[in-house]
């Protein structure tokens, strides 16, 4: 920021994955058009998908995935201790993500079904926020590279690095999409945080709420909407629980 008389330094980042598909990290590596600029902005100290460096001095830790084993808890705590800013990166880290589906089924049954009775250490899927303090959340399954870039630029420049507070409907209407409720589907757009440019509804797929709830949502009104449209409450709950972002609201109901 030469015109303002101060210099910005590259931030040191480390990127780590826990129980996840590593798809969110891949988003960063994948967007080739801006990859050189992105790499100039940050100093990669530890990022399995991009670099062979394995250094422990980082300011910002991007943490992808949910926590499903006890050794992951220890590793996460160590990362927290080193990082100045810990970012919950992607839906699994923010809310537990699809991994949380396993929480519905007894552990023994799961292990029997999936691993055919082998001895596997596992526990119910947890958000990283359940274990350590999270400074910033970037939700999305996967994360939006544009949003990550914007937030990274915000962190480097110390300017605004916030998520939209309004729901997906705003962005969906801006794409001139036909409302999926008009097509007879349950869409979580009215209560899900925007920032994805309504990519799913634009592709005629209902929003499943991967970005979690928008700020101060009107959940009772949404439930009423599903009822008024004579759509299935079970289907609604299924969608709400897929990414585990609406856990608090579902619990309230029960």
């Amino acid at each position, binding site marked *: 920021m*030469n015109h303002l008389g101060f210099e910005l330094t590259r931030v040191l980042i480390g990127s780590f994955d826990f129980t996840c598909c590593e798809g969110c990290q891949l988003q960063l590596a994948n967007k080739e058009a801006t990859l050189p600029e*992105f790499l100039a*902005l940050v100093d990669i100290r530890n990022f399995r998908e991009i670099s062979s460096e394995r250094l422990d001095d980082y300011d910002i830790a991007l943490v992808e995935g949910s926590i499903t084993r006890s050794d992951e808890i220890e590793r996460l705590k160590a990362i927290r201790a080193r990082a100045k800013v810990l970012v919950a990166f992607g839906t699994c880290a923010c809310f537990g993500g699809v991994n949380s589906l396993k929480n519905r089924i007894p552990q023994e049954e799961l292990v029997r079904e999936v691993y055919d009775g082998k001895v596997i250490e596992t526990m119910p899927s947890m958000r990283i926020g359940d274990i350590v303090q999270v400074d910033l959340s970037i939700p999305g399954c996967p994360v939006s590279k544009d949003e990550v870039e914007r937030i990274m630029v915000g962190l480097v420049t110390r300017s605004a690095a916030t998520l939209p507070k309004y729901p997906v409907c705003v962005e969906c209407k801006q794409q001139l999409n036909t409302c999926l409720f008009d097509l007879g589907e349950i869409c979580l757009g009215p209560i899900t945080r925007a920032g994805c440019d309504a990519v799913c509804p634009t592709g005629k797929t209902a929003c499943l709420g991967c970005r979690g709830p928008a700020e101060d949502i009107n959940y*009772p009104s949404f439930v009423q909407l599903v009822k008024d449209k004579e759509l299935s409450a079970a289907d609604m709950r299924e969608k709400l629980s897929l990414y585990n972002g609406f856990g608090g609201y579902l619990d309230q109901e029960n």
Partner: protein
Amino acid sequence: MIYKVISKPEFKSFIDAIVKANTAYGPKQVDTGCKGEPVYQFMPVHAADEIAFDYTATHSSAKHLFLPFRDELSKFSFTDGNWEQEVRYDAPPIVLIGLRPCDINAVNILDDVMLHGPYPSPYYLARRKNTFIIGMDHLPLPDCFCKSMNRHTVNHGFNLFCSDIGDRYYLSINSANAFSFLKEFKLEEPSYEDNCNLIERRKKIKHSFTTNIEVTGLPVFLDIEFNSPIWEKWGDKCLSCGTCAMVCPTCYCYSVEERFDIDLKGSTRQNHLYSCNLVDFAQVAGGHNFRPKNGDRLKYRYYHHYRGFAANDNQQICVGCNRCGRACLADINPKDVINDLRLERESCMTCVSTSPDKT
């Protein structure tokens, strides 16, 4: 204004020619709803055949062609110890076909807001001047209430307006450009019969409205009812999703954001169309929110639409297209809210004044 009539096939070839020579937008069926109803939107069109001339109403308005949802205001490029700012407000010409009278009135209202204040917006002006508007009349839908807002007829703000008089269109030509384009096509002077047909058509439209909202004295009502419990009642339904503002032809509130380029060598200032229903619309830098409740924000939107803002001569900006009412998932529509507001007041009146009939 010059009046002519044109046969429907000839009109279609005129539209075809103008659409093929320009960037054009017109009503197109984009979907079929779950009850079998067609869904229309103003979309880019490349031939007259793509245009649904007999469409009912589009889901979204054509507002975004004048006020894009996201618009670049200026660009900064940082140089050594300094910066330069580049402001651009050029707009390529477009043709906009099939606007309803209420839609054209909406554009006229935007003109008042954007161009007639102390700070005319060059961004809007460039787009407005470069848009060729062809209007078309229609029979109102059951929930249209533009007649109540006195926005069901229009006599300016378009280049060409077409009234359907059976096998022909009655054309109101309102610009030299439109007149010279039409020279290539077979037009006729309106006959006595054509004039009668036009009047019949107007009458038929006028008498086809089934939804009426009493808006006289509404500004005062809204002032008096500022603390009415009905706002909380409707606010409890409101999802604060901003849909109403996005589809509205006159909602123009926006937010300005500045973003660094990823290489940090510059930045861009953009405006984003926003909605006063969105949760952080009135939030200030320190975090305080002047309108924290759904009801406060919903009220504010009605206040803007039906009371009007002092700076815009207290003009009501709603045109009565009911797009917001149709699009609202929480089933909030101007007719019900305003009737509720009036009822609330009337019931108050009866509780304070003793009626001789009641014992």
